[in-house]
C-alpha cells in the first residue's frame, strides 16, 4: 500500500508530500523525504518492553507496573520536572499539561535549549510573521542568519524558500537573492549570492549596526563592527532594502550565542524597521517537528509558551528560573519525567550529572543516553508515524499527522492518560507524598 502526502515528523518544515510504502503492516520505503526525515520515518532499534530499575539494572516489567511506579515517583516528588514534548503530538502535550498540574511540577519543552530565546524575544518585541506559503510565492530575498538549513532543514530551500518556484516567483532560485550570515562557511553559505562572515558572539553588535544603517544613521557606525567592515554591512543593507518581499530566517547561531534572546529581540526590530522601506517578514527555524505545537498548547492552557511551574497552584513562568536547565542546575527538581527527548545528550554535562541522581521516568520509542540512568522506561509508538495527532509547522500552521502503520506500542497520549489515572488512584496512599 502506498500512503501519499504523508507528513514528515522530523523538523519544523513538516514536509507534507512524503510517500510511504507499507507492506504487511511494515514500512518498506519512504520517498521524497530528506536524509533526516527518512531516517526518522523508517525507524531503528526499539525499546522492546517497559522496564524498571532493580538493583541497579533495568529489568522487564508490565506497562501497568511502569505507570504505577511513574505515579509513585511523581507523587513523592516535591518539585518534579516534566520535560521534552517537542517530538510528539499536541494531544499528548495536552495530557502533559494535565499531569504537570496534577503533580505540581515544572513543565518545559526542548524549546528551552533551542529557540527558547526566540520565544522570549518574540514576547518582548512581536513578530512580523508570515506563512511559508507566502514566502514561497512572494519572497524575492531570503536571509538565513545563524542557521544552516542545508543540514538542519534540508528541504526548506526546495519547498519554501530560496530554491522553490512560487506563484509570483516563477524563476525559483534564479529570481531570488539569497543572503547567508554566519560565523563559518556552511553548506548553506555555499549556495548564497552574498555570504557575510561575522565573528562568533557578535550578532547583537552587527544587527545594531544594520539598524543604524537602515535608519540612515550610518555616520554613527564605525568602519569595522566586531571584524565586519562597514562597507560590507552597507552593501547588505542596500540589498535588504531593494527587496520586494524579504524573508529573514534565523537559527540557533543566534539563540545559542552570547546575547541569546537579546539577539532575537534586535533582529525582530531590524525586520520591523525594514518594513518602513519594503515588505519584510521573519521566522525562527524551529527544529523538532512539533516544538511549535508544545508552545501553542502551553500558551492556550497556561498563558505561557514554555518553562511553566505549576507548583504554586497557578502557572508561573520565569525563564532562567523555571526553565529545565535552571531547575536542575540548582538541584531544585527531585524527579523527572522525560518524554520524546534526550536531555542526557542535549543538556550541559554538569546538569546531566544531577539529572542522573534523581528518579527519571523515560517515555520514548528508542534507547538513548537518558535510558542509561532512567528508573522507569516506557516504550511508546512513534508519534506522527505510528500514532496520529496535530503538529504545528515552524510558521504556526497546524497540520494533521496521520498514522502510517499500526504499532504494538501505546501512544504517548495513552501512556500519559494511564499515568494520570494512576496518579488519581494512588494519591494519598503512597506514604511519601508532600503535604498538600
Amino acid at each position, binding site marked *: 500500500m502506498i500512503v501519499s502526502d504523508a507528513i514528515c515528523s522530523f523538523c519544523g518544515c513538516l514536509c507534507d508530500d512524503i510517500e510511504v510504502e507499507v507492506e504487511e503492516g511494515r514500512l518498506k520505503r519512504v520517498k521524497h523525504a530528506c536524509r533526516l526525515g527518512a531516517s526518522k520515518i523508517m525507524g531503528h532499534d526499539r525499546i522492546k518492553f517497559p522496564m524498571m530499575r532493580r538493583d541497579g539494572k533495568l529489568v522487564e516489567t508490565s506497562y501497568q507496573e511502569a505507570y504505577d511506579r511513574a505515579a509513585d515517583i511523581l507523587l513523592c516528588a516535591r518539585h518534579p520536572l516534566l520535560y521534552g514534548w517537542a517530538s510528539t503530538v499536541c494531544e499528548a502535550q495536552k495530557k502533559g499539561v494535565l499531569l504537570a498540574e496534577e503533580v505540581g511540577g515544572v513543565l518545559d519543552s526542548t524549546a528551552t535549549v533551542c529557540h527558547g530565546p526566540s520565544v522570549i524575544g518574540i514576547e518582548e518585541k512581536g513578530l512580523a510573521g508570515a506563512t511559508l506559503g507566502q514566502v514561497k510565492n512572494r519572497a524575492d530575498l531570503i536571509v538565513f542568519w545563524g542557521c544552516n538549513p542545508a543540514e538542519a532543514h534540508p528541504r526548506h530551500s526546495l519547498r519554501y524558500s530560496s530554491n522553490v518556484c512560487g506563484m509570483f516567483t516563477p524563476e525559483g532560485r534564479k529570481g531570488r537573492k539569497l543572503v547567508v550570515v554566519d560565523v*563559518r562557511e556552511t553548506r548553506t553559505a555555499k549556495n548564497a549570492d552574498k555570504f557575510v562572515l561575522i565573528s562568533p558572539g557578535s550578532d547583537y553588535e552587527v544587527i545594531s549596526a544594520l539598524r543604524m544603517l537602515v535608519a540612515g544613521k550610518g555616520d554613527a557606525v564605525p568602519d569595522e563592527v566586531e571584524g565586519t567592515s562597514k562597507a560590507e554591512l552597507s552593501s547588505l543593507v542596500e540589498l535588504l532594502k531593494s527587496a520586494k518581499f524579504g524573508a529573514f530566517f534565523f537559527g540557533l547561531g543566534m539563540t545559542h550565542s552570547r546575547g541569546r534572546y537579546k539577539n532575537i529581540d534586535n533582529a525582530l526590530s531590524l525586520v520591523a524597521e525594514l518594513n518602513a522601506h519594503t515588505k519584510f517578514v521573519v521566522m525562527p527555524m524551529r527544529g523538532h517537528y512539533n516544538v511549535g505545537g508544545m508552545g501553542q498548547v502551553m500558551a492556550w492552557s497556561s498563558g505561557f509558551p514554555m518553562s511553566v511551574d505549576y507548583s504554586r497552584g497557578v502557572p508561573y513562568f520565569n525563564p532562567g528560573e523555571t526553565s529545565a536547565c535552571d531547575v536542575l542546575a540548582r538541584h531544585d527538581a527531585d524527579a523527572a519525567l522525560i518524554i520524546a527527548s534526550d536531555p542526557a545528550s542535549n543538556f550541559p554535562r554538569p546538569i546531566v550529572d544531577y539529572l542522573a541522581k534523581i528518579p527519571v521516568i523515560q517515555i520514548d520509542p528508542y534507547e538513548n543516553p537518558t535510558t542509561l540512568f532512567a528508573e522507569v522506561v516506557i516504550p511508546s509508538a512513534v508519534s506522527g508515524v505510528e500514532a496520529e495527532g496535530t503538529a504545528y509547522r515552524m510558521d504556526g500552521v497546524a497540520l494533521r499527522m496521520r498514522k502510517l502503520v499500526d504499532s504494538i506500542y501505546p501512544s504517548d497520549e495513552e501512556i500519559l492518560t494511564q499515568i494520570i489515572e494512576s496518579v488519581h488512584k494512588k494519591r494519598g496512599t503512597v506514604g511519601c507524598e508532600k503535604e498538600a
Partner: protein
Amino acid sequence: MKAIMISGRTLAQGAGCESKMSADFFKAASVCSLSEKDYNSLGLSDGRNVLVKNSFGQAVLSARMDAGLPPGMVFIPMGPWANVLVGPDTGGCGTPQYKGVEVDVEATDKPVLGARELFGDIGRASA
C-alpha cells in the same frame, strides 16, 4: 591551541539522533572539525584524535578538516560529546551557551569514548 567551539546540527548527526546508541551516531557526533590552518598546525592527519577541554570538562574526538571554518574556531556536532564542554549557566533565559565556548585543543593518541563509556561514571549507569 586556544579556540572557540561551536556546536550544531549536521546531516549525519541528525540522521542518527533517534539512534543515539548506534555506531553511526557515534561516528557522526564524536567529531571535531578544524580549519585547514589549525588542522595542519596541530600536525593532524586521517585517523588522528584531538583532546578538547575547558573548565567544564574534556572530550577526545576524531579530528576532521573543514575548509569552511575560520582559523581559531572548531565545530562539534550537537550531542553528548560537545556538551561535555558546555557550562550550565543560562544567562537568565533558560538556554545554555552552546556556541562560542572557549576551549583548548591538542592532538592526542587517546581513544574516543563511545556513548556508554562517556556516561559510564554517571548515576546508575555504572551499577
